[in-house]
């Protein structure tokens, strides 16, 4: 990615109000679209005050993936700043920062080159200023932790002393970047910059945003697909503290804003009580048939006939008929909720033809356009401020909640905080799509995979959003074993439904890897081979395979084998597990990251106990080992709770599970021992919010098979209902 960023950006310097150095980046617009004159100035990335304090703007929203710490670390590294004197501030949404988005594990790798250049440019300017001041050659100077040093004389100048002079010179264009062996900040475990405030309860999350005279809003929402027939506001308005009842119209595209009735009150509790008292009748003609059993039935119907062809190599029919052994299996995945710890919410204030939206978000640009659409206010008059988010997991990539808050503020003529109760959050989520994978696999006499047919029928999230090519969000054409099996076929069928679907952490990789890595394990056992050796054989020689989806353009078989081997080595794959313990393995590539996981499980009283998970991770250079380890631990636990418990059921257009009592998350006492091992390699860094999710569920299922001989083909796992 370095080339395109290199072409599009250049860095300029200016003065801070107090006379310090202000480094700004200019985005050179794509030549084909706009003239160079239209180049936009980026907001300040780095500010060096005359007192030596370095302020770095965190450009992307922080949802718990650590980018508010790791991205500024990259700038500070090249700047040679004293990390103890670096202040990090959350930037607002501003086109001048370029892409501001937390999703797809893109934060680190997309910004790596840009942020290094920002830091290195500032450092070069400070060096030049010092050379003039000391009347020496710039090459005789070096920098260290906030100082320029002249080793022959031992003279030292603080960055603060140099900032004003540095700001007067133009920013150089070609600055040298450090070698990784010179890093002093990148590669060191550094705690989250907000931690000291978080432990005092002093960080404002979305729900903590306060505007004067703000009203709190709770929205009654229809069953999936239903429409509003009538409502009576009287009982709601009689609840003390309730101020207004407002009808929320649906947008033509249902994924942008859904119909509902909002109760606005002086405080959250009154809004919730008012919403309970509200009398609403829905026309349920279209929603009555929406249910998970109906989805399942539809999937089975669709699987009986060919779907949209996604990929075809060789001749699968011939491969299967010529195979020595053929296996068939269906793998089923349920709808899955995001359940961010901070329920979905947003605060907006519309006044004087402008709108301010302040909330937890992953996609601030999406919030801006939806708020603009919902209020009729032009996007350039919508200010978007990013609160720290109590989790995201893909939920806050969909920005419809920002539109709800903005719309309500406009109609109520007051600042409004739209709050979803946990029940609203769980019952009106955009779920990970549900569906069934059907596999047929053929082995030759030597136990090699000669044919692989994979058909998926599910509820596409692109279809829900009204986008074309529903298969694009669901089945990824280059996922292994694509290109590893001579006769290979992928087909897809969408199940139309009003049940909302969206991106869940690792998108559909988290579900697909369960199916693919599970079926691969079935083939390994059918071939009478060790599951690790079978996978290594399948991957074959070291080479780069084309990979067109998340994290491409290539997938390295060497790196995928590397994480399989490392996870196996660290888990003691060569030695038999303790008695009563089963061991399974799986690996997956996504978002440029390679992760292999070994799971160890036991079974007691019909329940699976995940005892240990060992991950090997190749995400290139690790920017912040502390944050990175946390992300991998968290991803593994997230995948474990989804595999053991995660399931959303729908009856008559309504979600059955209502709160955290029914939708279980892991507790402290249930967590396995976790091992996290990074592959030290020469590759530039890639993101870690997601990659460690996908291999966990299949590793657990494969371990249960090794222990019990029972193959788990449905998420979440139920030993009583083994497919």
């Amino acid at each position: 990615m370095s080339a395109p960023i290199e072409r599009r950006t250049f860095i300029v310097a200016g003065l801070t109000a107090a006379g310090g150095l202000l480094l700004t980046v200019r985005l050179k617009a794509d030549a084909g679209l706009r003239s160079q004159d239209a180049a936009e100035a980026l907001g300040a990335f780095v500010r060096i005050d005359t007192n030596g304090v370095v302020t770095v703007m965190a450009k992307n929203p922080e949802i718990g993936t650590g980018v508010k710490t790791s991205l500024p670390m990259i700038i500070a590294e090249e700047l040679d700043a004293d990390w103890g004197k670096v202040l990090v501030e959350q930037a607002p949404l501003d086109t001048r920062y370029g892409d501001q988005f937390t999703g797809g594990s893109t934060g680190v790798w997309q910004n790596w080159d840009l942020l290094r250049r920002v830091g290195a440019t500032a450092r070069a300017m400070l060096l030049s200023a010092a050379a003039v001041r000391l009347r020496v050659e710039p090459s005789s100077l070096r920098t260290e932790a906030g100082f320029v040093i002249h080793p022959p004389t031992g003279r030292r100048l603080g960055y603060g002393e140099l900032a004003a002079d540095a700001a007067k010179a133009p920013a150089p264009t070609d600055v040298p970047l450090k070698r990784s062996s010179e890093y002093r900040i990148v590669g060191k475990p550094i705690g989250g910059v907000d931690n000291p405030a978080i432990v005092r309860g002093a960080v404002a999350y979305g729900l903590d945003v306060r505007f004067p005279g703000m009203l709190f809003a709770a929205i009654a929402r229809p069953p999936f697909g239903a429409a509003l027939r009538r409502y009576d506001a009287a009982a709601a308005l009689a609840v003390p503290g309730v101020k207004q009842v407002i009808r929320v119209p649906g947008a033509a595209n249902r994924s942008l804003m859904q119909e509902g009735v909002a109760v606005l009150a002086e405080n959250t509790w009154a809004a919730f009580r008012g919403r309970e008292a509200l009398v609403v009748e829905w026309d349920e003609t279209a929603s009555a048939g929406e249910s998970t059993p109906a989805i399942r039935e539809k999937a089975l119907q669709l699987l009986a006939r060919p779907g949209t062809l996604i990929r075809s190599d060789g001749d699968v029919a011939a491969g299967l008929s010529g195979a020595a052994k053929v296996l068939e299996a269906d793998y089923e995945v349920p709808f899955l909720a995001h359940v961010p710890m901070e329920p979905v919410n947003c605060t907006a204030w519309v006044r004087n033809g402008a709108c301010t939206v302040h909330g937890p978000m992953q996609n601030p640009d999406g919030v801006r356009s939806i708020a603009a659409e919902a209020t009729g206010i032009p996007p350039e008059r919508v200010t978007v401020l990013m609160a720290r988010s109590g989790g995201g997991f893909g939920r806050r990539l969909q920005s419809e909640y920002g539109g709800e808050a903005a719309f309500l503020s406009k109609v109520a003529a007051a600042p409004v905080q739209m709050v979803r109760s946990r029940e609203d959050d769980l019952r009106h989520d955009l779920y990970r799509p549900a569906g069934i994978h059907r596999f047929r696999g053929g082995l030759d006499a030597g136990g090699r995979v000669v044919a692989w047919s994979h058909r998926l029928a599910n509820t596409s999230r692109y279809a829900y959003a009204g986008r074309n090519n529903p298969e694009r969000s669901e089945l990824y054409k280059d996922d292994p074993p694509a290109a590893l099996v001579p006769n290979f076929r992928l087909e897809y069928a969408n199940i139309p439904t009003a049940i909302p679907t969206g991106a869940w952490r690792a998108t559909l990789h988290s579900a697909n890897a369960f199916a693919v890595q599970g079926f691969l394990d079935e083939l390994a056992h059918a071939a009478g081979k060790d599951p690790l050796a079978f996978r290594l054989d399948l991957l074959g020689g070291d080479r780069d395979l084309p990979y067109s989806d998340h994290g491409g353009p290539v997938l390295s078989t060497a790196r995928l084998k590397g994480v399989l081997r490392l996870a196996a080595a660290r888990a003691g794959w060569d030695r038999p597990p303790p008695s009563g313990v089963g061991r399974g393995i799986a690996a997956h590539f996504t978002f440029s990251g390679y992760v292999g996981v070994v799971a160890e499980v036991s079974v007691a009283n019909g329940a699976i106990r995940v005892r240990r998970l060992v991950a090997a991770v190749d995400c290139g250079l690790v920017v912040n080992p502390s944050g990175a380890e946390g992300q991998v631990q968290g991803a593994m636990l997230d995948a474990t709770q989804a595999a053991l418990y995660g399931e959303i059921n729908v009856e008559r257009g309504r979600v059955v599970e209502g709160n955290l009592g029914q939708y279980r998350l892991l507790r402290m006492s249930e967590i396995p021992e976790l091992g996290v091992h990074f592959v030290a390699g020469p590759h530039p860094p890639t993101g870690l919010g997601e990659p460690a999710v996908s291999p966990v569920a299949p590793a657990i299922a494969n371990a249960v098979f090794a222990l019990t001989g029972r193959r788990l083909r449905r998420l979440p796992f139920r030993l009583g209902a083994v497919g």
Partner: protein
Amino acid sequence: MPAITLTVNGRRHSIEVPTEMPLLWALRDIINLTGTKFGCGIGACGACTVHLDGQPVRSCGLPVGQVGTRRITTIEGLAPDGGHALQRAWVAEDVPQCGYCQAGQLMSAAALLAKTPRPTDADIDTAMAGNLCRCGTYPRIRRAIHRAARGE
């Protein structure tokens, strides 16, 4: 509505709200102490944990009318300078991911250490069973509690 007097972090607040209003919302929306978090509203997540006379309680299920004269401590009052051994341990172990659950985790952990200064893993599992962390920071929470207990 008669005024209700609450003592929060050593300060007295007189508020006029229905007696059934859960303490959580009185703290957050009336007294404007937003460090105590809303996660579920039904006592299932622990995000709203505060102390009443040192005992951990879920403020989302406790009507303000039932608080009486008991002293309320929220995360903001655990140690106003952030200097509680647990707060220091949380920073040292880099516990938070999103951080949203951590106020409740800290309040539960503080109540545990007040009663059991050197807790075992089993003590920790029991005391922390009602506090969910969606981000999966449990391994570090455990380490941080042990660190604080060692007095580091």
